[in-house]
């Protein structure tokens, strides 16, 4: 390979479109003509016109772009990965988490910790669960690996805190019981794909 090949950094598909920028004048006369053209032909004033037009649009046609952020919030994508939420089962209100520990295992920043125990009903109970949001990088693996769609990402993206480590506990992340009717499924990482039904092989049943 020659050096020229290395120097050609225009890799990829070469379908650039050249803009009609005219040519740069080279003689003094040419430059003078360009100055004249730009000032006398009022090219300069196009800029003024544009800014004035935008101001009118903003003031009188309701096209102001500003979102008054803390008071107004833009809707975010349902796939956005912000502070985690713990979902509940709709029928019983019991938390969905079964304490399998997969989120703890897959977490690449090691910020999830969980304690489980054998409870009085012979079930696995999550006795303690924390996420250290100071370490969490919101990669979404926990939501993706969760077999019960229990841990998901929510839309709460305001994560500023006063300390570097910021632990949340299980109760804070769980859907409050009185909000259970409003609980929404998370369509992002870890949710079944729209074609999931097609990809599943059905298991025979003997009932």
């Amino acid at each position: 390979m020659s050096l020229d090949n290395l120097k050609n950094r225009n890799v990829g598909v070469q379908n650039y479109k050249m803009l009609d920028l005219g040519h740069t004048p080279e003689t003094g006369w040419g430059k003078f003509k360009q100055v004249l053209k730009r000032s006398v032909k009022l090219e300069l004033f196009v800029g003024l016109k544009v800014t004035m037009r935008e101001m009118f649009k903003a003031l009188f046609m309701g096209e102001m772009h500003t979102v008054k952020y803390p008071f107004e919030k833009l809707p975010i994508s349902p796939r956005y990965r912000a502070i985690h939420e713990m979902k509940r089962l709709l029928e019983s209100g019991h938390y969905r988490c079964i304490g399998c520990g997969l989120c703890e295992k897959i977490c690449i920043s090691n910020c999830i910790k969980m304690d489980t125990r054998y409870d009085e009903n012979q079930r696995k109970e999550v006795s303690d669960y924390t996420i250290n949001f100071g370490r969490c990088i919101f990669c979404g693996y926990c939501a993706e690996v969760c077999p019960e769609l229990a841990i998901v990402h929510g839309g709460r993206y305001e994560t500023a805190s006063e300390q570097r480590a910021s632990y949340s506990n299980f109760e804070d992340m769980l859907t409050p019981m009185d909000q259970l009717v409003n609980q929404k499924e998370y369509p992002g990482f870890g949710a079944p794909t729209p074609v999931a039904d097609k990809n599943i092989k059905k298991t025979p049943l003997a009932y």
Partner: protein
Amino acid sequence: MDGYIIATVIKAILILAVISALAGFGTYIERKILAFMQRRLGPMHVGPFGVLQIAADGIKLFTKEDFIPSGANKIIFMVAPIITAATAFIALAAVPLLPEFTLFGVTVRPIVSDMNIGILFVIAMMGVGLYGPLLAGMAQENKWGIIGSARTAIQFLSYEVVTGLSLLAPIMMVGSLSLIDFNTYQAGGIAHWIVWTQPVAFVLFLISGFAETNRTPFDLLENEAEVISGYATEYSGMRWGMFFIGEYANMITIGFLASLVFLGGFNPLWIIPGGLAIILKVAFFFFLMLWVRAAWPHIRPDQLMWLCWKVLMPLAVINILITGLVMMA
């Protein structure tokens, strides 16, 4: 004589107070206008529509620690902003701001001093104003300050030439240096405005006025993209605020000069009384400066010099020549 001194002092204090307040208010207007032109809201939270933002800024600037960097030349560093602010206000001394009016039976002439060399004084004072940024930049021990002051020197000195030459033609026509005489000269209504006889001089004056006040597209002295903050790099708090007030006072001065010299001054306009007329005219120029800032980009220093010496200065000279020829004919 005593009454004259007292009146002058009162006038000076009033002008100082009103213009500095206006300068402060100007920053609010600038932010608002720029925001609207970019379809934003601008300051909104301090006071209704954010008008008290300036108060918040003022409190901030006043209460900031007044410190002098270790490498700076202390005295010059401290004096430089005062030069800028002072010259800006001194220049206003020879500018008639409003038409005469009567208050409590006393006829008030709203000019501190109607000297016969008024326009020269104003230009001279604005020229002295260059010492502010020049010394400020050189008093600091950093390269951006130095570059800022170098740019100050070339930009202000160069455009001083264009300002002077562009005003020479109207002066020749009026035959006086007093700004009151300019006003009187144009008393006959819109048709008598000098702008119609001296359009080239008007455009040249306006362009150089942008350069003199260090406004976009000629704000090379403190162009953040190139020299951090230029001459003001190491300034903060009220000292930096003084540069700011000086700049806005200068903007107002240029607005007054342009209205007085070219646009009929404070002569009544149709039904509009003279006082309101000049305020509207100054307001238009102020708005124009903001508008231009919103619309146009900076230019390079070399383009600035090219424009000054190769385009504007020759045009101004030709303009004087033609004016002279016409007057002689």
